[in-house]
């Protein structure tokens, strides 16, 4: 029953979703909302798994004095300190909100800003490769880059229009083809799970 029971639950949940999404009476019963609430409640319990995993791993680093172990002390202090603070004054409390707005948000922005440099290094490497595809990529990038900046139209009238055409026609067409393929792939995966053919989420190599 270790594998059969989850499959039965999966199939029943799938059928409830189909009934609630396509049928008038299913929609009126609001079963999907109930399922969503059940998921949220069970997922909330899983937060504990995440905390236990973090504490176990970092406590091990401290105990074994692994390189950089003092970082683990800071992490555990922050984890439990901030947790205690938000329990005491909620996430909107003055100190809790200050820490979030002045430490976490700028940290996030810094990481996000790194992407600009990574884009440059990735582009440099891609354009350096001497293949037909890399050449097409380079030419397209130059057209779109200059077309989106004022210099494009200043150099040749209509450059911006060409850049817009590339973005709106071949680029959007390609993206939509990928999205349609991915949607059908997601459907086929869902159907395999409903048929019990794909069992990766139940552990092991994932197939029957």
């Amino acid at each position, binding site marked *: 029953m270790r594998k059969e029971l989850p499959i039965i639950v999966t199939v029943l949940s799938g059928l409830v979703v*189909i009934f609630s*999404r*396509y*049928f*008038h*009476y*299913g*929609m009126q019963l609001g079963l999907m909302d109930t399922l969503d609430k059940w*998921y949220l409640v069970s*997922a909330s319990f*899983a*937060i*504990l*798994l*995440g905390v236990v*995993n*973090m504490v*176990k*791993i970092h406590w*091990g680093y401290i105990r074994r004095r692994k390189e*950089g172990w003092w970082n683990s002390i800071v992490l555990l202090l922050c984890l439990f300190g901030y947790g205690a603070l938000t329990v005491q004054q909620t996430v909107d409390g003055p100190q809790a909100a200050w820490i979030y707005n002045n430490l*976490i948000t700028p*940290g*996030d922005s810094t*990481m*996000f800003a790194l*992407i600009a440099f*990574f*884009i440059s290094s*990735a*582009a440099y*490497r*891609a354009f350096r490769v001497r293949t037909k595809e890399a050449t097409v990529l380079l030419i397209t990038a130059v057209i779109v880059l200059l077309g989106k900046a004022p210099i494009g139209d200043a150099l040749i009238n209509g450059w911006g229009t060409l850049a817009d055409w590339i973005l709106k026609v071949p680029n959007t067409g390609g*993206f939509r083809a*990928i*999205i*349609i*393929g*991915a949607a*059908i*792939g*997601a*459907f*086929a*995966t869902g*159907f*395999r*799970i409903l*048929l019990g*053919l*794909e069992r*990766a*989420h*139940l*552990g*092991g*190599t*994932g*197939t*029957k």
Partner: protein
Amino acid sequence: MLFAAEAAKPYLGVFADGKFAQFVLMLVFAFIVWFMVTRAKAGMKIPEIRKINGLEALDEAIGRATEMGRPVHFTPGLAGVGNPQTFAAFGLLGYVAKLCAKYDTRLIQTNADYVVLAINEEIIRQAYLESGRPDAFNADDVQFMSDQQFAYAANVMNMFQKDKPAANIMMGAFWAESLIFAETASFIGAIQIAGTAHTHQLPFFITACDYTLIGEEIYAASAYLSKEPVLYGSLVGQDWAKIFVFAMIIIGTLIANFQAKGNWLTSILKK
């Protein structure tokens, strides 16, 4: 109030408003996939499917990590179990874990979702068990890092610099952190296999990684790697469903261009 009651009137007395065509299409796709699976089960010939280079390269990537004595890193991205891409990653993780167990290569698996963490731990544990190496499974290498996007990204970057994995496998739903992972792994010289159905992250992966699975290919991964005819059958069904959709697009385009008034195909699809 009267208007609202009229608007909610079921189509054919059963179907929710605007859902009839979607339901029929779902049945058609399900039939196509089921038909191919049944043919495969009966041992009948099913068409070949094309080679997916990114999946063929998995053995090479893990083999390289084994030769170099360095670990393999696997991430299913940021999404939780509500995203089908995460389910696609589960299938691949089992295969990767089995290979790592076979070659005695360390597998570091990082997570940004606690439900996914629990499932991944079970998948890896089971794969090591199936490979006859339950002793080699190290629960400390299945790590929850953070559910905050950039905190997770920073943690993974730190792990890359510290543990220097020789192979980086990224499969699932990714957002802005995709290029942070791919470029950092590239700096440490890791061979990279990535896959996502998020079109806005695909250019990053294609530029920075050695192999990229595009869109639907990630959903084919576990069936493709299993080499089981029945699952191969479902992939062929998936391709036939795609042909059906593209036929509809061509017909719709022709009607839109040549029919003076209205479009009967869109009218049917709106029902």
